C-alpha cells in the first residue's frame, strides 16, 4: 500500500506515542521523544504545500462501520493548527528534558506518564485535525478530551479535582455535540461534509438554532467560552510546567478548529447570521460575538486578581480565546485573518510565558506572586523571555500579538461595531494591567533574601524559551510569514483573505507595515539611548539604598508592593466580582446532589412491593381510562 504524506505524519506521531509508552522510563527518553517530535515537524513540513494555497492530502486509512464512512485528510486549516500543535509540543518537550525532568522526578513525579500523556495529546490532536467527516471529528474530539484529562490529572492533589471538574464539563460538551450529531444525521442521512452542507441549506430555522447552540456550546466548552470557562484556568495551571505550556498554547484551540469546521465551513456564517433571536434585534452571529467579548473581558479581569503566576496566565489564556472567536465570527477578511493569526501568536507567547514561570518555579520553588520579586538580577534571560511574552500577550508593538489584535480591531472598525471594539480594547487594557503585575511581582522590585543565591535557569530550559521569544519577535516584525498560512487556512473554510505583504496588511482604509513601525521604534530607542548614555556615567546602588522617607532599610524588612495591586481600581470594581458563575456551578452541583439523595431514598424504601402494586394499578387504570 502506498503511504501518503499524512499517513507518514500519523505513523510518526503514533511511533512517538509508542516510544514514550514503552521506553519512557529512562532519562534519555525525553530527548528521544523530543527528537521524534522534530521528525513529526519535518513530516508536517513535507506537506507545506497545504500551508501555501491549499489542496488536501487524504490518508489512505478509512473505515466503514455500521454504514458510516470514516475518513481522514489534511487541508490548509488542519495544517495550520497541526503546525502550532507539533511546534508547541516539540518546544515544551524539549523544555521538559534534562534539568526539569530530574527535579520533577525528585519531587516524585511520574515522568514516563508525563511523556506518554504529551505524546498521546499530540497524536489525538492530529487525528482530530485530520478528521474528514463529522463522525471522525467526534471521535477525534472525544480522544482529545480524554487525552487532555490524562495530562491534567498527572500532578495529583489539586490537579485531580481540577481535572475532574474538566472532565464533567468536557463530557457535557461532548454529549451536546453527540446530540447535535444525531440530529444532523437524521436530517442529512449521512455524516459526510458535503451531505451536511446540503442538508443545512434546507433546514428549518429552529433546527439550525438548536444545532448552533449544541455545537457552539459543545465546542465552546473546550475553548472555555463564557458560561463554560470555569474549569480551564485551574486545570491548565495545575498541570506540570511544560504540560501547562503545551495545553495553554494549543489545547483549547481545538475548540476553535471545530467551530471553524462546523459553524463556519459547514453551516456558513451567512446562515448563522440569518438566525434571528426572537423579540431582539440580534442574530446568532451577534450572540457569538458578544459571548466572545465577554469571554475576553471577564476572565481577563479575573486574571488581574490572581496571586499565582500560573493561574494568572491560564486565565489570560481563556480571555485571549475570545479575540480569536471574535475575529472569526466577524468573518470579514481582516477579522478572520486576525482570529486565526491570533491562534498562532497566542500559542507562541503563552508557551513562552508558562515556560518562564516554570523556570522561576524551578529555581525558587514558588509561583506565588507575593513570595517573589527582584529576580531580574538573578534570572535576566528568563526576565527577557517573560517581557517579550507579556508584550505579545498585551498586544503591544513590536511583538506579534499586536498584529493579530490590530487586525481584529480593524475588522470591527470596518464593520462599524463600536461596542465590540470598545470591549475588545477594554480587554487589552486589562491585560496590560495584569501582565505588569505579573512581571513586577516576579522580576522587579525588591529581591528577597532567600533568593540571593538563585541563578539563571539551565540551558536545557533556556533554549526553547529563547527560540520562542525569537519567533514572537520575528513574526511580529514579519507578520507576512504566518499570514501566508492563515490565508490558505481561510480559503479552506471559505472566508475572504486580506491582501498582505511581508510587513503586514495592505488596505485602502489604512494599512500596517510592521517593518517600518518597528524600524522607527528601534531607531527611537537608539536616539533615546544616545541622549541617555551621553550624560554622566551612572552608579549602581544597592536596593536598600533607597528612599523610604528617611527610614533606614534593612534586608529583613520587606520593602515591596505586591499584594492587592491596583487597590484603587479594586475600590471601584472590586464589588463587581460576584463569582456568579461559581455560584451557578455550585447550585447545579447541589441540585444534582439533592436529586440523587432523593433517588437513593426511593431505593432505600423497604416497601418495594408497594411500588409494584401501585404501578400495576396505575397502568391498568391508565389502560382502562
Amino acid at each position, binding site marked *: 500500500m502506498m503511504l501518503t504524506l499524512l499517513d507518514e505524519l500519523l505513523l510518526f506521531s503514533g511511533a512517538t506515542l509508542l516510544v514514550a509508552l514503552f521506553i519512557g522510563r529512562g532519562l534519555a527518553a525525553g530527548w528521544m521523544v523530543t527528537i521524534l517530535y522534530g521528525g513529526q515537524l519535518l513530516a508536517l513540513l513535507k506537506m507545506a504545500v497545504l500551508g501555501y494555497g491549499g489542496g488536501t492530502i487524504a490518508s489512505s486509512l478509512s473505515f466503514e462501520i455500521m454504514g458510516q464512512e470514516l475518513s481522514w485528510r489534511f487541508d490548509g486549516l488542519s495544517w495550520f493548527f497541526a503546525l502550532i500543535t507539533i511546534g508547541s509540543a516539540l518546544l515544551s518537550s524539549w523544555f521538559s528534558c534534562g534539568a526539569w525532568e530530574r527535579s520533577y522526578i525528585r519531587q516524585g513525579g511520574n515522568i514516563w506518564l508525563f511523556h506518554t500523556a504529551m505524546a498521546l495529546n499530540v497524536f489525538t490532536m492530529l487525528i482530530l485535525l485530520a478528521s474528514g467527516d463529522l463522525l471522525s471529528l467526534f471521535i477525534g474530539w472525544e480522544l482529545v478530551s480524554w487525552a487532555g484529562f490524562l495530562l491534567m490529572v498527572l500532578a495529583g492533589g489539586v490537579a485531580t479535582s481540577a481535572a475532574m471538574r474538566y472532565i464533567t464539563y468536557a463530557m457535557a460538551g461532548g454529549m451536546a455535540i453527540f446530540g447535535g450529531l444525531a440530529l444532523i444525521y437524521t436530517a442529512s442521512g449521512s455524516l459526510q461534509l458535503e451531505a451536511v452542507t446540503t442538508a443545512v441549506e434546507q433546514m428549518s430555522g429552529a433546527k439550525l438554532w438548536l444545532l448552533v447552540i449544541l455545537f457552539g456550546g459543545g465546542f465552546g466548552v473546550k475553548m472555555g467560552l463564557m458560561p463554560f470557562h470555569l474549569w480551564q484556568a485551574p486545570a491548565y495551571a495545575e498541570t506540570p510546567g511544560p504540560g501547562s505550556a503545551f495545553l495553554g498554547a494549543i489545547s483549547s484551540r481545538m475548540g476553535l478548529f471545530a467551530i471553524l469546521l462546523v459553524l463556519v465551513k459547514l453551516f456558513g456564517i451567512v446562515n448563522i447570521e440569518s438566525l434571528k433571536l426572537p423579540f431582539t434585534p440580534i442574530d446568532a452571529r451577534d450572540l457569538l460575538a458578544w459571548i466572545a467579548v465577554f469571554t475576553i473581558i471577564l476572565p481577563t479581569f479575573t486574571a488581574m486578581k490572581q496571586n499565582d503566576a500560573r493561574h494568572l496566565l491560564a486565565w489570560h489564556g481563556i480571555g485571549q480565546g475570545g479575540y480569536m472567536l471574535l475575529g472569526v465570527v466577524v468573518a470579514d477578511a481582516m477579522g478572520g485573518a486576525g482570529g486565526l493569526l491570533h491562534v498562532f501568536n497566542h500559542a507562541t507567547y503563552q508557551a513562552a510565558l508558562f515556560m518562564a514561570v516554570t523556570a522561576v518555579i524551578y529555581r525558587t*520553588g514558588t509561583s506565588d506572586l507575593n513570595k517573589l520579586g527582584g529576580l531580574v538580577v538573578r534570572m535576566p534571560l528568563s526576565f527577557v523571555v517573560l517581557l517579550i511574552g507579556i508584550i505579545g500577550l498585551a498586544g503591544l508593538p513590536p511583538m506579534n500579538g499586536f498584529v493579530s489584535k490590530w487586525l481584529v480591531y480593524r475588522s470591527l472598525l470596518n464593520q462599524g461595531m463600536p461596542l465590540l471594539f470598545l470591549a475588545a480594547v477594554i480587554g487589552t487594557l486589562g491585560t496590560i494591567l495584569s501582565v505588569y503585575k505579573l512581571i513586577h511581582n516576579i522580576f522587579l522590585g525588591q529581591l528577597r533574601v532567600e533568593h540571593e543565591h538563585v*541563578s539563571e535557569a539551565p540551558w536545557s530550559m533556556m533554549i526553547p524559551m529563547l527560540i520562542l521569544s525569537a519567533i514572537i519577535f520575528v513574526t511580529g516584525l514579519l507578520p507576512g510569514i504566518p499570514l501566508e498560512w492563515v490565508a490558505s487556512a481561510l480559503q479552506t473554510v471559505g472566508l475572504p483573505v486580506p491582501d498582505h505583504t511581508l510587513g503586514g496588511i495592505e488596505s485602502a482604509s489604512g494599512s500596517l507595515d510592521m517593518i517600518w513601525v518597528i524600524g522607527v521604534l528601534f531607531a527611537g530607542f537608539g536616539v533615546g539611548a544616545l541622549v541617555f548614555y551621553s550624560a554622566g556615567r551612572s552608579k549602581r*546602588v544597592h*536596593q*536598600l539604598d533607597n528612599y523610604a522617607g528617611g527610614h533606614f532599610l534593612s534586608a529583613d524588612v520587606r520593602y515591596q508592593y505586591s499584594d492587592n495591586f491596583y487597590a484603587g481600581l479594586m475600590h471601584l470594581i472590586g464589588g463587581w466580582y460576584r463569582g456568579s458563575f461559581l455560584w451557578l456551578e455550585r447550585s447545579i452541583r447541589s441540585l444534582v446532589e439533592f436529586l440523587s439523595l432523593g433517588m437513593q431514598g426511593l431505593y432505600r424504601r423497604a416497601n418495594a412491593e408497594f411500588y409494584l402494586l401501585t404501578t400495576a394499578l396505575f397502568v391498568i387504570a391508565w389502560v382502562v381510562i
Partner: protein
Amino acid sequence: MSSIKQIPVVEAKRTNPLARVFDDLVRFCRSRSLFILHYCTGCGAIELPPAMTSRFDMERLGIQPMVSPRQADILLITGYVSIKTLKRVILTYEQMGSPKYVIGICSCTVNGGMYWQSYATAKKLDEYMPVDLYIAGCMPRPEAVIEGLQQLMDRIHAGEANSWEDYYRNYDYYLGNQQKLFGEDWQTPTDVISEAKHYDLLSNGTLGDHTRLLEQHQKPLEALEMRLGHEQKEPAK
C-alpha cells in the same frame, strides 16, 4: 552597564575652548534650575511657603520644591536638629545626587540657637555634613531666604559651590563626628567611600580611623550585579 564611553561633564583643566563654553553653560543651567528638598524639623518651615508662593515666587528664579532626595539639589534644613533627626538628615543628604548643596536655616542649625544647652540636639550642622550656606535668624524672613538662595546661585554659576566634594574628601572627619553622636556601629546604606572612588574624589582625608571602624561594623551592601551564571549556588528548593 556604562560600557559606553562618554565625556565626563565637569572636569578641571580643560584645554578645549568648546568644552569650556560647555562647562559654562552647564554651570549656568545648574545655577538657574534648583530643586529644593525641604527638611523642616522643628520650626522655620512656616517661612518657606510665602517664599514659594505668589508673594515672592521662587519659581521665577527656577527654584522649585521636590519630594525625594534623588531629585533634589538643595537640602534645606530648618530649625533645630535633634540627634534622632540628624540620622535621617544624613541619610537624606547621602542619597542626594551631587552636585548638592546644604542650606541651614535658623540659628539652631548654626549653633544650636535656643537649644544650645540641650543634650538631645546637634549644635553645629557643619560638623556632620558640609554646609554651603547658613541663613541665620529666628526665624529668617522669606526675603532673607531668597537672598541666600540668590547668593548660592551666584556661587554655583561661579563654580565655587563645591562643598559636596568636601564630604567625600574629608569623609573620615564627618564620619568621626557622626560616630561620636550615634555610636561606633553607625552606618548608612550609602557606600560613601566607593562613591568617592567613583567620582575620583578619594583623598587622604577620606579614609582614616573612623572609616576603618566603619568597615568593621559595616554590613556589606554592594549593588546586586546582574548575574548570567547558570550554576546554582544552592540546590534549588
